[in-house]
């Protein structure tokens, strides 16, 4: 086992290398590009045996990826943001073809307006497609989640593609110490892909993707995918336990941070959860009984785990780094539905929108969140409303941008 300082992107490339992937269709997009460039370099130097094709778009990239997986190859690819939504049509197709590949998404907020900074509207748009989704907080977790994702995705009772998500810039370009497991250990955890069902390179020719044009058949196939995600939920603990046994790192579907005696829980995902943890620690020092639950597995949604972690608490605040325009936070809605009907659910479940377009949290905002949890709004309408984290100072900054846009001020004078 080697330890190295790796960016989130190179940790993802390392995982693909250790998984001994066969095929990598690629198309560049910031902040993902380093992943496929790293793999290209290793292919060039002969350090890995994979084949890479540089495609003309993410749509064709995902099309090629799915077809390759359907031939029984182990496929890896990566994209971000606009690339993910440009290839969106293929996401449903790949899941429907039951092609178990791993797609890394490096989160970046969607156009328009155009930006490069992260939020999760890109990856969460894919939540209904049939892809499994793992969201990582650290570079180590990126590497480990990809290995676990292959195990789960390729399992004969699952056979669905998986997305592993990491935040652009905050993880993609940040170096952390990462343990790179021994190839032999990885091989025993994740042997080569041997599809259990007929595929495009099997002994008997077959056609994939046939039209069914029959509501009953369509329902059957679609619901089978849902069953497969239920299987994935059931298989996850086994796989995570095996991973922990072999590599010493244990990953729940939800990471529980200072939750033991917590009255109040903040729910977050991805790398910004690190900022949340720092504030939880500070509030703990100030004597507050607060903790943080970080959702790692987004699909299948860990319904029961959410219930286990949040029941009996006085309050929970979901910080969504996304916005479903016209509704509010996506994960808030999902968590609320998981808690519905639970007699000892937290009486206050609050929704906060923060971190859009990479906006950083401010320490005082966590004080505000806790205050709101301790004295939640009384009206039922008010309690479920999303609350936007945004400061007066930012309002003033926006005003300044407007004056640049209207020609009153020059941008480079700033």
């Amino acid at each position, binding site marked *: 086992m080697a330890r190295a300082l790796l960016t989130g992107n190179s940790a993802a490339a390392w995982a693909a290398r250790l998984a001994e992937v066969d095929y990598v269709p690629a198309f560049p997009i910031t902040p993902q*590009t380093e992943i496929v460039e790293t793999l*290209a370099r290793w292919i060039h130097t002969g350090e890995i045996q994979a084949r890479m094709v*540089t495609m003309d778009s993410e749509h064709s990239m995902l099309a090629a990826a799915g077809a390759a997986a359907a031939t029984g190859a182990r496929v890896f690819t990566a994209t971000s943001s606009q690339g993910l939504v440009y290839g969106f049509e293929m996401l449903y197709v790949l899941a429907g073809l039951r092609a178990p590949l791993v797609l890394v998404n490096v989160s970046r907020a969607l156009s328009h307006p*155009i930006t490069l900074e992260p939020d999760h509207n890109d990856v969460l748009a894919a939540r209904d497609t049939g892809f499994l989704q793992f969201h990582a907080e650290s570079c180590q977790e990126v590497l480990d989640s990809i290995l676990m994702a292959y195990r789960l995705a390729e399992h004969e009772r699952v056979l669905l593609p998986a997305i592993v998500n990491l935040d652009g810039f905050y993880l993609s370009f940040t170096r952390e110490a990462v343990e790179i497991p021994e190839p032999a250990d990885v091989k025993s955890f994740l042997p080569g892909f041997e599809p259990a069902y007929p595929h495009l390179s099997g002994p008997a020719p077959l056609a994939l993707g046939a039209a069914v044009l029959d509501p009953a058949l369509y329902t059957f196939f679609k619901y089978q995918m849902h069953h497969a995600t239920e299987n994935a939920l059931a298989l996850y603990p086994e796989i995570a336990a095996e991973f922990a046994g072999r590599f010493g790192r244990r990953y729940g579907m939800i990471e529980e941070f200072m939750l033991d005696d917590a009255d109040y829980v903040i729910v977050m995902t991805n790398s910004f959860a690190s900022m949340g943890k720092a504030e939880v620690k500070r509030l703990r020092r100030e004597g507050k009984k607060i903790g943080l639950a970080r959702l790692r597995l987004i699909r299948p949604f860990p319904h029961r785990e959410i219930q286990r972690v949040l029941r009996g608490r006085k309050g929970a605040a979901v910080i969504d780094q996304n916005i479903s325009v016209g509704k509010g936070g996506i994960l808030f809605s999902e968590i609320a539905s998981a808690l519905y009907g639970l007699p000892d659910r937290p009486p206050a479940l609050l929704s906060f929108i923060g971190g859009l377009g990479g906006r950083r949290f401010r320490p005082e905002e966590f004080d505000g969140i806790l205050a709101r949890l301790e004295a939640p709004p009384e009206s039922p309408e008010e309690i479920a409303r999303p609350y936007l984290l945004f400061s007066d100072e930012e309002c003033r900054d926006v005003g300044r941008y407007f004056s640049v846009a209207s020609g009153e001020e020059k*941008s480079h004078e700033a």
Partner: protein
Amino acid sequence: MSLPMMKEESKSRSVEAKREGPKLTVKDFKGRVDPDWCPGCGDFGLLAALKQALVELELQPHEVLTVSGIGCSSNLPGYVNAYGMHTLHGRAVAVATGAQLANHKLKVIVTGGDGDGYGIGGNHFLHTMRRNVDLTYLVMDNQIYGLTTGQISPTSIKGMKTKSTPFGSVENPINPIPLAIAAGATYVARGFTGQVKQLVELIKGGIRHRGFSLIDVFSPCVTYNNDNSHEFFKARVKKLEEMGHDPTNFHAAIDKAYLWGDAIPIGLFWKRTDLPSLDELEPVLAEGGPLAHRPLGVSPEAAKALIQVLM
């Protein structure tokens, strides 16, 4: 039965823009933000040529719309004082088609990179040419993906080593000139940002031309493409005017378009004026001026008459 038409003054269409306002200078077309391109980037040359062409055509900023996709080159609309849209990677000509048909009095200029136009946007490129939409498409062709910091593009030469092809590209590049001629573009030219004077003329010709104009412009990326540098092109480009080329000769145009090596032709390869542009094929557009300037909606009389018919 006939429905009462909405009253519309029928404006005759002139290809030349209406002259109004004072004669402008290049400074008047300068945008509010300065380009963030690398010093020495070819795109500066194209930006200068475009502004010069707009001045020489005596166009006013409000008569011009620039539309782009995503890429270094696609940042251009922000640097020009005119209407502008910065859209999505590969979508510029589709967006521009919508704007041109809704307001066919606008001079719609599309700008972007080779990746944007010939790669991810290749499908729109082909079909917009086939339809002969009245657009002027300026492709800053640097044979690389610049904004994503140096990967192979559809015009990268075979064997080129980039960050995505450290082994050297094994693919054949697209040659946009014969492609455009075959697909139905009616004005097809190639320019070089090192030959700004000629480029200004090519752009002016493209804007004046009614129909789809492609101007593929060698616009070297000084940061990520050391193969196709300014010096590389400077030593090789040869003006078609000086080669005795007749841009109405289809076969000669195709032949010249395939020349590559010690002499790479630049200039106007192909032009035909006998085909109508898409907006000219829409009788409804000829009737009452740009859609954007017509009262939208249905007049009460027309609505009543329609209800009568349906009852």
